[in-house]
């Protein structure tokens, strides 16, 4: 190693150190600390602070509220991501031929995505108002209590989430569609391919990769989602919209059980990492197969 290389190495370390320091102190260290916390009984207001071992996890294993939250989380993630992917793909296909007013079209589309989730929660709370909300007005003046009925609250929440995140899916699919050379379709047309054949043989295969990427991002976001349900329904009524993140938050900061709440956080953490890891495996297998 000559002097220049040594100098470069030193410069490299110097340049990465502020970011590494920030990530180390504020992400990695708390990420390890939460594992440790989840093994403690820690309730600051009662001065409780002792080692608990795996007892929180053992409790969770037979905690009906935990299993309910897990079920709500999975239903929420599966249904909203499924709807977002379908609607997003349709929107992208519709937008593809747009010539005039593309900028306006994208602004209208991205509006729902760019708003703070808390604003979305407030918007939908008002839309769902039993006597004066737009949804009931459009249904001819009915007085359905969307957010107060345990059977309706989760679908209502999912609808708000789909509204908010479908634009992201649509944008990524739209960008990919614009990248497909028109010559491909012209050649297929010459060969006598119909519209359906062109869609299933050209468009879909070329979209597959971006759809997989979007599927991953959206699944991770849906599993981590918190703001929307916390503000819109607070997990209610009767726990029908209480996700793992909401259960974790309430245990941590409303009943102030820092150890127990951390154990639920760790479960969310593990779930997210498991999804990311299986996706990476899937993607690698696809690339080897291709």
């Amino acid at each position: 190693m000559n002097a220049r290389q040594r100098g470069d190495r030193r410069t490299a370390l110097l340049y990465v150190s502020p970011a590494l320091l920030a990530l180390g102190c504020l992400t990695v260290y708390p990420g390890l600390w939460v594992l440790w916390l989840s093994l403690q009984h820690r309730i600051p207001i009662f001065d409780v602070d002792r080692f608990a071992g795996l007892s929180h996890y053992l409790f969770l294993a037979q905690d009906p509220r935990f299993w309910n939250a897990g079920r709500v989380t999975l239903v929420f993630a599966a249904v909203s991501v499924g709807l977002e992917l379908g609607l997003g793909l349709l929107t992208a296909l519709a937008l593809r031929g747009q010539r005039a007013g593309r900028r306006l079209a994208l602004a209208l589309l991205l509006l729902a995505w760019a708003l703070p989730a808390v604003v979305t929660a407030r918007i939908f709370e008002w839309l769902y108002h039993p006597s004066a909300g737009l949804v009931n007005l459009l249904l001819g003046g009915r007085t359905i209590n969307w957010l107060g009925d345990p059977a309706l609250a989760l679908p209502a929440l999912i609808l708000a989430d789909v509204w908010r995140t479908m634009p992201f899916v649509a944008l990524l699919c739209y960008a990919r569609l614009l990248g497909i050379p028109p010559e491909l379709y012209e050649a297929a047309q010459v060969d006598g391919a119909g519209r359906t054949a062109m869609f299933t043989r050209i468009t879909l295969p070329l979209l597959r990769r971006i759809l997989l990427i979007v599927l991953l991002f959206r699944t991770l976001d849906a599993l981590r989602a918190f703001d929307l349900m916390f503000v819109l329904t607070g997990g209610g009524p009767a726990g029908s919209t209480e996700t793992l993140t909401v259960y974790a938050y309430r245990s941590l900061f409303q009943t102030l059980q820092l150890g127990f709440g951390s154990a639920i956080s760790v479960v969310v953490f593990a779930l997210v990492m498991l999804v990311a890891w299986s996706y990476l495996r899937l993607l690698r297998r696809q690339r080897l197969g291709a």
Partner: protein
Amino acid sequence: MSRQRAGGGRHLADAAILLALAAYAIPFFWQLLSSFKVDADLLHGQLVPARLTLAHYRVVVEQSPVPRALVNSLVVALLTTGLALGFGGLAAYALARLPVPGRSALLLGVIAGTAFPQIATVSPLYLLMRALGLRDTWLALVLADTSFALPLVIWLLAGFIAEIPEELEQAAALDGAGRLQVLRWVVLPLMAPGAASAALLTFLFSWNEFLFAYTFTASEPARTVPVALALFPGVFEVPWGDIAAASILASLPPVVIIVVFQRLLVRGLLAGAIRE
């Protein structure tokens, strides 16, 4: 395909799609309209109001914690953006151009970092902020938001820097420019559009962020807009009109970004998605 479909039919289709997208945005426009309605019209479900009022905005601006929260949000989002771009830019340059020890492990860590759930670190960060005496301060939010935004910023900027032809830097180095000079006069101008994309995404994340802001603040002098909106005071009845006005004010920066800086934002979003 659609390329060949000529003239009137295309215009009609374009208009239909714009109309459908406008319909999609109705929840927002309904909130906008509600913010100008008088209370009687709001509660009687009047679709088209007889008259409009600025009363809700007056209440929000003069009597609610929202104006203070807007200032807090702006300061936190700007400081977060500056810090994340400064730290992230240096790290990205090193990862793209310099022999960083353990480079591939670091890149993997950066990607994993973008998947990190906030709820996983909120409890230790709360204890950390309390121990450092940072509860209820801007700094707590800036630090937490920055660390959370850094992985994506590093990833985006490293990609943008890698696109810059390295010959330009080598030429400048041959002319006797040092590392920092090359960074300042060659790399920085060329990566400006990429940096702007990353800055917009970071600003938007920080402006919209709720969980950290809700947990680390306890009083109005530090609360950000999403927190103020979530806790919007109502004594006996929910003040729907005031809440509508407050949510429109909270939406202004995101709306400006998608209208004025749309191209940069979309570029950043697309670049962020093509990470493997």
